[in-house]
């Protein structure tokens, strides 16, 4: 390990009751995820002295939960979701700012686009955005653009054209992930699918299909980080942070990036490898953000698991399938477990290194990498069995 400061470990992980339109509030999800992570770790609220969140306000959460004093906190707005919370918490502990911090990502499902275009009425939260587009959005929304599926469609198209990849190449990845989900009782989609199922799924922004997209849900995810020293006294097998990185290369405009193939994951991967003596060959399993299938391809290449433009072949040859050289998204990914905005990748990595992944366990897993986001910004970490 070449990362500066105190060695940091994962103490506990947990989710709320995740699902479509759960009827639970944002606070309910935050509380449930926090309690689950505390129970997993064996820690109590009084052991926590740091908190960070994307999706809720950490100081309000701390007061609600009874965390006092709060020695460190950070709120993420324009940030790569859970990976921002996690990397901030790791850095805060490494530096001594706090000793035990909880990192949260809490998501309330957004109104569907079909509800939006059908005009859900003047009380619809997005109605005010519909008819006047200000700021940068004046160059986007009038053109019929602005949905993430559209930049994802453009990223995918560019990749296909640049490297000769096909829609079937993305299908291979989607089918593989679903196979992994079939072994995860917590996944929302567990029935295996075939290439025909993939190719008959509807487009949302061609060449992007609905099965290439993560599944919107209400979810709360929590991971508690602490020092290695403390972690050794806790309930769970120790999982250590080997390296971590966060970076941004521009503001949030994916649609005008001048290179849509090599984006923020390139820099994040570089920093991750600079923080360790490990190499891609040492990694036993990778949990790579799959907000859209193309993002997994970008990470496979950025992290050096295969060369530029080789992700399609890498997946086709079965490397990313359980039993292959690098099982990827062994929980089924966010397409199948539902949107956790990065947290599931950290949590599944932790479970794999603890040996707690059940039927989908990667035998002898000692090194895992997990990542989040793409395009303008990205982050991730390499974890090892302690």
């Amino acid at each position, binding site marked *: 390990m070449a990362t500066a400061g105190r060695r940091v470990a994962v103490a506990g992980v947990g989710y709320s009751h995740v699902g479509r339109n759960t009827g639970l509030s944002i606070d309910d999800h935050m509380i449930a995820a926090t309690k689950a992570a505390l129970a997993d770790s064996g820690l109590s609220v009084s052991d926590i002295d740091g908190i960070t969140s994307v999706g809720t306000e950490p100081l309000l959460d701390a007061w609600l939960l009874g965390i006092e004093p709060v020695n460190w906190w950070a709120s993420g707005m324009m940030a790569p979701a859970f990976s921002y919370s996690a990397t901030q918490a790791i850095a805060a502990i490494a530096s001594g700012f706090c000793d035990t911090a909880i990192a949260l990502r809490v998501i309330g499902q957004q109104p569907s*686009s079909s509800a*939006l*275009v*059908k*005009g*859900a*009425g*003047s009380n*619809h939260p997005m*109605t005010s955005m*519909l*008819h*006047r*587009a*200000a*700021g*940068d959005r*004046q*160059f*986007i*929304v*009038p*053109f*019929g*653009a*602005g*949905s993430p*599926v*559209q930049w994802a*469609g*453009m*990223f*995918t*198209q*560019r990749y296909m*054209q*640049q490297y000769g990849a096909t829609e079937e190449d993305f299908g291979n990845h989607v089918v593989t992930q679903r196979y992994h989900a079939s072994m995860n009782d917590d996944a929302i989609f567990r029935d295996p699918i075939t290439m025909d199922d993939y190719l008959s799924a*509807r*487009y*949302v*922004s*061609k*060449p*992007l299909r609905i099965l290439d997209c993560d599944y919107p849900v209400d979810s709360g995810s929590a991971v508690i980080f602490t020092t290695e020293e403390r972690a050794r006294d806790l309930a769970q097998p120790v999982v250590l942070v080997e390296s971590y990185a966060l970076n941004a290369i521009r503001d949030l*405009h994916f*649609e*005008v*990036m*001048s290179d*849509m193939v090599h984006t923020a994951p390139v820099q994040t991967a570089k920093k991750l490898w600079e923080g360790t003596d490990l190499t891609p060959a040492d990694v036993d399993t990778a949990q790579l953000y799959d907000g859209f299938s193309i993002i997994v391809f970008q990470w496979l290449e950025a992290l050096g698991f295969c060369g530029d433009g080789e992700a399609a072949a890498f997946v086709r040859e079965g490397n990313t399938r359980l039993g292959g050289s690098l099982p990827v998204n062994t929980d089924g990914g966010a397409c199948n477990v539902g949107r956790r905005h990065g947290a599931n990748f950290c949590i599944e990595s932790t479970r794999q290194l603890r040996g707690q992944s059940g039927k989908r366990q990667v035998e002898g897993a000692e090194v895992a990498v997990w990542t989040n986001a793409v395009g303008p910004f990205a982050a991730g970490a390499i974890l090892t069995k302690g």
Partner: protein
Amino acid sequence: MSTSTSATDGTAEAPLPPLPQPDAVTQFFWDGVAEGELRIQRCQSCGHYLHYPKVLCRYCQSDDLAGERVSGRGTLYTWTIAVQPFHPFYVDRIPYIVATVELEEEPGLMFMTQLTDCTEEDLRIGMPVEVTFVELHPELTLPFFRPVQGRT
């Protein structure tokens, strides 16, 4: 919801398009559109173009910025076929092609637009395209791009 009402001609309510809200920084762009010119903000100090327009040049930190007419030519960087509408105005307009074009004035100067006067089968990355102004609605004209005539 606030769809427009065509009270004068008695037709059913048609959704208004999403309209740009120009401000002091972006007014030049829409003035250009109204005059059939594509104008892009350019730093008068270092010469770099900036899109979307801003109050500061991110290359040299000068605030001496002005909209300048550009050729309206570029190459197709990528595209997607929009098959799902995200605004009531576009419900009856799918499918359409959302595209990002690299303008010829500067490498990496990207412009997001729609393509017109072509089909999906015509498209390939790097193909030359040019601006064309399309009136989508009496209140909205936009700079779309199309394949350069005779060069596809």
